Every structure is written in C-alpha cells, then in structure tokens.
C-alpha cells in the first residue's frame, strides 16, 4: 500500500501540472476555433483541438484521452448550438476539471452574439426533422464576419482570464479584424461573378457561407439534416437541379461521394469537395486559407 502511494506521489510530482504555467491552455472542439484562438492569444496561449478538420464535427467521440486534454485546459471553447451535444458532457465530466465546466470563466460558447440562420420557427422541434439543431444552424464559422465575432468573444474571455495581457489580446483582435476586412474585399471580388448562382449542397454546412457571398442553396443531398441520401430524395434533387440549372454540388470532405457523383452524372453538374473546417485539407491551414480554399475551388468549379 505504501509503495502504491509512493508511486502515485512520484507520478503526481512528475506530472506537467505542477510546473508553473505562464501560458493559457486552450482546448477547442474544432480546428477553426483553434486557428482563431491562436490568432488572438498569440504566444500567451497554447491551443489544442479535440476535433480534426477532416472529420464530421457532429460525431466526435468521447475518448478517454480527450478527457486528459480537457483536464489540462484553462479555457474550453466550443462552437455551441448543440454541435458538441454527442460528447461534450461526457468529456467535461470525465475530465474532473472544475475550471472549464459550463457557466465558469473557463467555458466559452463561441456563438455568443452571432446572428443565427435556420432557427426553427415551428412550435415543436423533434427528431422527425432529422438531426435538427433547435437553436439554429451551428456552421456559422464559415461566414468571415462571424469569425470576427468569435475572435471578439475569445479576446474578451482571454482578457478576463489574464487581465494583464488585455492590451495584447486587443491588439491581436484588431489585427485579425483588419486582415478579415482586407481579405473580405478580395474574397467578395472573387465571388462577384457568381453572385446569385445556385448550388446544391450535401449537408447544411454552407448556408452562412452562401449568404455572405451571395450564393443560393437550391437543395441538399441529405433529405433531412444528418440523414443519409435516399434514392427517392436524390430523384427530387435531380429534378430541382435540372429545373434550376444548378451546376455545382458543394460537399464536405468526410461524406461518401457516391450520391453526389450519381447526381452529377444525371445532371451534368460538377462536384466540388471542399473543407468546411481548418485542417479539412492540407491547403486549409488556418482560417484565412480555409476561406481562400473554399472560394478558390468554387470559383474554379463555376469557371470550368
């Protein structure tokens, strides 16, 4: 017994926790949040993400190793709007970290203050509607204007956690916003020729992006959010695409391409596989290159 205690004591002593920390450990649920948190936190933070950009953000699993990552976090940042409903509670409870529990300064819902799309207007929301998000579509990070809101939320929270670095975070926030504004001119210019064009999408990851850059979503390959395409529904999609002359199918990197390829074959449309998150493909290294990649591929798709 004494030996066991000794081992535990030595292990506790060896653990990195006991070393004093100057940096704030941030854990995000997605790589998009990670990229923005890095831009704002600079060298005052160390950021890790639970999810990877090339996986479906709805289906991240509550691995015990994630609980250890969460245990070591000073700030937990989530997308919110129930995107993390499948694993967040299990990981936070399992981490035994009281600092990042919901309602504490160490827990940030990045969606605070974002103008939401697709908030259900029906009086009742239930699973007959698929994997619906009762508070609105959670893929808001794909609108660069919303990235500014995320950045603002992160800067505000970091300033609360480390008031002595407030000026630094605010300076980084300004620089981030300036870069978004500069890039926005470039992005809008690139998308200008395609304003008003219709696209088909696989999952409802794209409404915020489409809304910002003037694309119109004609239909989705999923009959309902989170429900895989059925032959009957694909027939409807084909009809809509033929009727509305939709030439592009926009889809994420982690879905089965077969249904999209089938529809493309039937309609002559083009399938564009684009990352919907930082890290989704090699080009999408950070938030800016993510939007660059998406816009580049869409432009290429429309042009050819």
């Amino acid at each position: 017994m004494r030996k066991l205690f000794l081992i535990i004591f030595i292990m506790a002593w060896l653990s990195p926790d006991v070393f004093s920390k100057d940096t704030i450990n941030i854990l995000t649920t997605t790589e998009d949040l990670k990229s923005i948190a890095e831009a704002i936190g600079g060298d005052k933070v160390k950021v890790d993400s639970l999810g990877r950009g090339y996986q479906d953000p709805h289906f991240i699993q509550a691995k015990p190793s994630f609980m250890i990552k969460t245990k070591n976090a000073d700030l937990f940042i989530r997308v919110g709007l129930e995107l993390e409903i499948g694993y967040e509670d299990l990981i936070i409870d399992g981490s035994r970290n009281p600092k990042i529990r919901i309602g504490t300064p160490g827990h940030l819902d990045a969606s605070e203050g974002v103008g939401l799309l697709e908030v259900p207007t029906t009086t009742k929301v239930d699973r007959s509607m698929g994997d619906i998000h009762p508070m609105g579509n959670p893929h808001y990070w794909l609108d660069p204007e919303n990235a500014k809101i995320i950045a603002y939320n992160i800067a505000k929270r970091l300033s609360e956690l480390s008031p002595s670095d407030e000026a630094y975070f605010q300076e980084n926030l300004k620089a981030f916003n300036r870069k978004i504004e500069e890039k926005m001119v470039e992005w809008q210019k690139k998308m200008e020729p395609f304003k008003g064009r219709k696209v088909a999408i696989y999952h409802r990851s794209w409404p915020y992006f489409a809304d910002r850059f003037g694309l119109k979503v004609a239909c989705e390959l999923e009959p309902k959010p989170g429900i895989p395409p059925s032959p009957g529904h694909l027939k409807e999609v084909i009809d809509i695409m033929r009727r509305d002359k939709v030439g592009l199918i926009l889809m994420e990197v982690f879905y089965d391409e077969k249904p999209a390829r089938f529809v493309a074959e039937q309609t002559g449309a083009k399938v564009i596989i684009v990352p919907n998150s930082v890290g989704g493909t090699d080009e999408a290294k950070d938030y800016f290159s993510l939007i660059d990649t998406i816009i580049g591929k869409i432009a290429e798709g429309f042009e050819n």
Partner: protein
Amino acid sequence: MKKSFIILVISFLSVLLSASNARPSDLAQLQQELAALRAQIADLKRSYEARIAQLETRIEDMAKTYTIEAAKPRVAAPAPIQSAGMGRYFQSFNPDVSVIGDFTYHTTDTKEEEFRNQFQMRQTELAFSASVDPYARGDFFFHVEQEGGEWHIGLCEGYLTLLTLPIDGLQAKAGKFKVEFGKANKYHLHNLPWVDFPNMVRNYLGGEGMSEPGVSASYLIPNPWDKYIELTGQVINNRNGMSFAGGEGTSLCYLGHLKIFHDINESSSLELGASLMAGPNDDGLGRFGTNMTTLEGVDLTYKWRPLQQGLYKSVTFQNELLFSQHDRPFLDDGADIIEPKAVNSWGGYSSLEYQFARRWSVFGRYDFSELPLSSSSRENAYSAGITFAQSEYCFWRLQFKHTDRNFDKDSNEIWLQCDFGLGPHRKHEY
C-alpha cells in the same frame, strides 16, 4: 451651388475689408493683393472640391455595401437564442428524460425458455439525468420488464456523481450503480454491441450484469505521459447471488479497477483494464460471511475508426477474461462440514465488430465460460450477427448463437432485436 455662393460671399467680404483700409496711394498694391487673394481662393476652392468629390465617392461606395448588407435575408428572429429557447426556459429545471425500448423476437430449440418463439418487450429503460447542484449530477435508470404475466419496474441504476471534489482528479459516486468490473458488465441492454450479454457475465455477475448499492471513488492518476490512467475503488452491498452472498447477504464487497487508455494514433486506440473484487459468499449451508469469493478480470479493447471515414467504417475488437476463486465447504460422510476448498473457474469472450457502411455492421463473438461452483461444467458459445442502424436512435439486429454445454443440452438461438429511443439519452462511454 451652395459652395460657389459661400466662396463668392467670402471673396466679396474680403475685398470690402481690404478696400475699407485702403489709401489711394496703395491702390496698386491693393490690386496686387486682391489678385493674390483671388488666386488663393481659387486654390482653396479647387482643393476643397477635390476633397468633397473624394468624400462623395466614399459615401457612395459605403452606401453600396450597405445595400448589400441590408438586402440580406439575415436572421429570421432578432433574438434567435431566446426565441428558440423559450420552451427550454420552462424545462430548464426538469431533468433530461429518455425512454428506450428493447424489443425482441426470440426463437430457440430449448423448450424450457419462457419466451420461446415469442415476441417480447424485453425491457423499457426510463432514464433521467440532470445536474443536482453546482457540485454534482444525478442519473437514474429504471427498467420495466415482464416477469411471468406481470410487469415490474426496477431501479437498474440511480446514483449521484460528485464532480468537483477538492482533490484534483478525484470523482465519487454514491447510490446504486453497475459495478466497475471489466467492460461488458457496464452495458445496458440497449447499448450492448450484441443482443445478449456474454455467458461469462451472466454466469458470474448476473443476467444483466452486477448492479449494487454502494459508494465509488475514482482517481485519474497523473503521469508523465499524460495518459488516461484511472483507478477506481468501490464498496458495495454483498447481495449478488451469482458469485457472492445473494439476497440475504449482510456484508460488503470490495472492488478495484484500473483502466489505461492509449491512443495508438488518431484513428486507433487500445484500452486495458484490470479488475479485482472480493467478498464473502453464500456457502450453500445457510451460513453467510464465512467463505470468500475473489474475482479477477482483465479486459483489452482495440478500436479503429479512421477520422475522415468515421461515419462509414470502424472496427471494435473486445476481449475479456474472468477468474473466480469461490470458497465452498464440503460435507464429509458424517455430514460434518469440512474445511472449505476453493472452486477455481474461469470464463471469457472475444468479440469482433466491423462496421462496413454508414448503417451496417457485422459481428462475431466467441464465449467460453465455466460455472462459479463447478469448474468441470463448461459452455462454449458461437455467435454471429448483423446490425442495421436506421439512425442514431434506432437499430435492428439479427443474431444467431449456438451454445455447446458439457452439463446440459446444446442450444441454438435466433434473435431479432429492435431498439428505439426517445429523448436526449446521454451518450455512453467510449
């Protein structure tokens, strides 16, 4: 127009002003100054006009952007979180409530089975969970089952979890819970990867695993490698009838469990568990607490799920072994109790599940199990099945199982199972 007028007035006034101070002798100088002034004013006018023109273009540009912004079908509701969440406000203090049905059709060549060739609502689980206060959460799982002609509701689990204990990494539970012995014991019927519990669990821990009232403490052991190493200690009532004292047991059982989780890479992981449990058993002679049972268990689970194709492909290879030392007194010829002798027996299973499409997976399981009181009684069972997950909340499963027994007749069984859940039932552990 306005601009030219102002400039005119200014020029007029300045001329007037200079004229009033003029002396006839300075007339030439005055004229010179006037010319200079005119030139100056013209300069000013030019520069102002240029700047105004610049401003006007900027305003026009801004107006354009503004129209784009305003024309957007932005947010349906101005305060979406609040409006969408109205229902939630009213329900905020209610626990999450879920109901999960487990429905089967079971056919077997064992004639004694109660639900032979019958449909059966095998179990309905009612689950309630919520935060109790800032320090703890509560979880309740009630099971409604049919026994004979009657329906019974029982408490499968009902426990409080203390989440914010002052010792870093420590968490405690109090109430009735599924004990932390191995991996399969913790499943509920609806989240089993098979239709039935492995023989090992049924023979040593109970039909649906062992769940007893008690207390539990678990600690995440800090380590230099930042691995998940969890040590759990539990003290529970000694009322388990399979390996311990049974319904009339008055003593306690003690359990320890070590769980180590290792990410091999981002798509595959290995989990290793070791369990140890000890307590007095029912010695079969109506004396409780005199003889001991000790159970040891090891479990090893390998999981593979490539992140990018995670919706469509996965493999789970799960294995468990259980060893039992069950003290048992024997009667000699004169019916005197002689010294207890341990019955050493064991059981185990190995299961492989392969998900080959978004909704489809197949599995196979091999079971080996002796009986706690007879190491010479053996079961070998072979199961195979297929699962169709209609959605995350509903699946259908077909399973075939053949069991060889050296102490009873062999059996063949087929199940068709359908599980369906309502409500936000908390996801189970990884």
